[in-house]
């Protein structure tokens, strides 16, 4: 079963802060500001998959889909599936 919106948002905040190694505000740009690079986005995806027990298919994604907390939540709700 997919986690609910609030759980995804909370996990996104924690994962973003972990890869950026500093607290991240909801409106803060992560990728376009250079705060995290594409490799950190891959780490972010792995963290979210583990925490939320979901699978995020990366083929249709680009790093800017994870540019802020709102976008991360929207991307997960759009493409993620429950982990097999």
């Amino acid at each position, binding site marked *: 079963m997919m986690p609910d919106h609030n759980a995804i948002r909370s996990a996104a905040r924690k994962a973003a802060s972990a890869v950026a190694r500093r607290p991240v505000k909801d409106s803060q740009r992560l990728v376009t500001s*250079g705060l995290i*690079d*594409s*490799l950190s*986005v*891959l*780490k972010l*995806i*792995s963290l979210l998959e583990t925490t939320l027990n979901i699978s995020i298919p*990366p*083929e*249709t*994604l*680009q*790093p*800017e889909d994870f540019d802020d907390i709102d976008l991360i939540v929207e991307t997960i709700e759009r493409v993620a599936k429950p982990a097999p």
Partner: protein
Amino acid sequence: MPFNSVLYLIFLVAAVTVYWLLPHGLRRVFVLAASLAFYASWGVIFVWLPLLVAGIVYLFGTRIQFDSKGARRWMWLGIGCVLSLLIVFKYRAFVLSNLNVVFAPFGTHSSSWVTAIAFPMGISFYTLEAIAYLVDVRQGRVKIPSFLDLCLFFLFWPNILSGPILRARELVPQLRFRKPFEPRFVFEGLDRVVWGLVQKNVVANMLGIWVDKGFAPAAGIPFTSDAWFLAIAFGLQIYFDFAGYTNMAIGAARLLGVTLPENFRQPYHAATPPDFWARWHMTLSRWIRDYLFFPVNARWHGAPVPLYLSLLGVMALVGLWHGAGWNYILWGSLHGTYLIAYRVYESWKTERPSSGDSWLAAGTWRLVTLVAVTAAWVPFRASTLSKAGIILSSMFYRLTSGRAYSAAFYVFTLVVLLFCALEPLLLRKLSEIEERAGTDGLSPFSIMGRPLAYACGLLLFLLFDEHNTQFIYSQF
């Protein structure tokens, strides 16, 4: 019609004036006609090529959107078509000369006609834009624009020659040209155009005179200090050359009310090798990240070995994209190696959180990055690998004292270097003056100061016009 020519400046003033005098409805057709005329000035014979690319991506983009089951196949077919054109027009001589070496023992050789086809300007740049467009359509990021939109996107004269490399979703909406005229478009546009002219004609071309002599095949073995200054001078020349072109491209678009993305952010202030690529040719770095590096590594979740191999492979391809030659591949591979070295250091540091971020490590990485980037410019500029080897050997291994180049070369290079070091500070001061003066473009600073600065810039451009040469990146 190079950007740094009087003819282009006349074209720019005429095109921008007519554009703002025309009713909105006619502006798109006018910009397309002006772009076709501009591209034709480089060779009428190749005007069909960007139009063909627009036709290919329009056709395959439509198939991708309306045939969801076969979308992946259509995307790869479309990418294959545009890449084939790039290979035929840019890499055929390189491929054939290497095949000739391989098959020489069997007594075969290629015909000369295949190497005699001229090089269409900007093909490397609009090929990347075409690939990005097809992937974006496949990922549902862009709605299919009209064929006219796509022709305008690929032919838009400010960026067709050497970028910035754009995504359809950021430029096509602006190509509706619905913005009403604002005085700031003129000031912002002219600021960039005039500064670009000065960067190219005064700084890059002057450095180029010495660099050309030093890298000439007949030039002897340089002394160590000469070799270092040659490498530094070329690093500065290519920066001022490409940043100058980019400023002129961004400025020309701004004069039409269009905003193009930045391509440079003081690259020689980079703190690490990845930071250099976040500051140098930023729109190429963004393309590599989104359409090459991320999709490849996402499959492996960033595992170390595939990551390192992909960094080396991707950067070698970046080198090959710049030019069909082993020297470019070596340049890209060197940067791949730097990126791997930094990733290895980062992983090592992550495993030892107690090591912290010392100022010594940060300073060392800053210095190592600057030296490594400078050394990598040598194979990029050298006409042969053996020439690159001679200069690199003088820089690092066969150390000799002495100086064969004039004091003027050393002084000029040091002055430009000092300017680069102070660039962030100067930009900050300039932006403070701008803020105080207001943003409407009608402040006393804009009315009095800017025309004076433009006149000085144009005077310098004309004074140094005798050294007029092509932009380095227009050859790629």
